[in-house]
């Protein structure tokens, strides 16, 4: 490129493009604010969806936990408002889901739905007699994932056998 064209280039560079009008600049900046704001709304919505997914995963984890805990046929069921428990009784404390996962236990309760006499059993070589009772237990646990802030209520049902030593017949 010859010198005259280079000089022309330099001359052109000195011409300044006309900018946006003040009014239009304001409008476009408002539009940018709207777009950025909408982005935040979308993120919140995504967070909600993620939270629901996390809650579902949490339930699945807890189901797996209860199922594998003692091999019994535990189930997780939804709360039935019409359900009236037979009795509330603290039968025993096993490991909870919160012990295994990074979850905060909000509340924990167990109720005995039914008790069945399973009969006598002699233990310690026949020197000690025990009477076994089987309990149908429903455990209700409210857990919260601190990271997401979502809470779930897990209800599990299982059977427990409790030996009671008989001191006199």
């Amino acid at each position, binding site marked *: 490129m010859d010198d005259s064209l280079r000089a022309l*280039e330099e001359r052109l560079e000195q011409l*300044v493009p006309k900018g946006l009008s003040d009014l239009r600049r304001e409008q476009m900046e408002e539009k940018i604010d709207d777009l950025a704001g909408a982005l935040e709304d979308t993120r919140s919505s995504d967070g909600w969806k993620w939270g629901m997914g996390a809650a579902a995963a949490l339930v699945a984890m807890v189901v797996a936990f209860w199922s594998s805990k003692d091999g019994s046929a535990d189930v997780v069921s939804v709360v039935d408002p019409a359900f009236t428990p037979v009795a509330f009784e603290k039968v025993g404390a096993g490991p909870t889901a919160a012990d295994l996962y990074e979850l905060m236990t909000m509340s924990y309760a167990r109720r005995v739905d039914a008790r069945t006499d399973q009969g006598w059993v002699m233990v310690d070589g026949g020197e000690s007699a025990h009477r076994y009772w089987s309990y149908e237990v429903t455990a209700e646990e409210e857990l919260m994932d601190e990271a997401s802030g979502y809470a779930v209520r897990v209800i599990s049902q299982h059977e427990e056998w409790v030996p009671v030593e008989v001191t006199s017949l």
Partner: protein
Amino acid sequence: MPLRSQNLADAWKDWLSTEGGKLLLYARSRTNCQQDAEDLMQEALIRLWGYQEERGHVPPDVPLAYSVLRLCGMDYGRKQGRRTKKQKKIIQFHDYDEHWLDRGVEEDEEAEFLRCAVEKLTDKLREVITMKIWGGLTFAQIAEVLKISQNTAASRYRYALEQLQKSLGRLKEARNG
């Protein structure tokens, strides 16, 4: 507005402040009037925001902005109809004192001639000049935006400069009588 969104909005406003003028100049070269050019800019801005989603909505680089602006300009051209567009351009060049380049900065007569000469270049030549001189794009980037070869971009640029030089020469001759 949450901090991250606010930061993003601020980044786009800074980007608009820095790049807006040169992009508007290009938009102006594809529209009938300044207002349409600003409409085109706004439309391009919204499209760019969408395109940048996969990049975390950071402000786009200039070649992409030109590409999107060009697409918007093509849509605009289709809507307006080429014949009408040309007619309106001619009317506006003569009837309105509306220029694409700011006349407040340079006061001398030669600058005025040059500005008029740029406005009268053909669309193909003017867009290459606009992208190279005021957009700061390389020939490779211009080629990418316009979907032409680098050689074609460079040839158009050189030809445009020669045209401007001739126009300027003629204007000077006319001025000197």
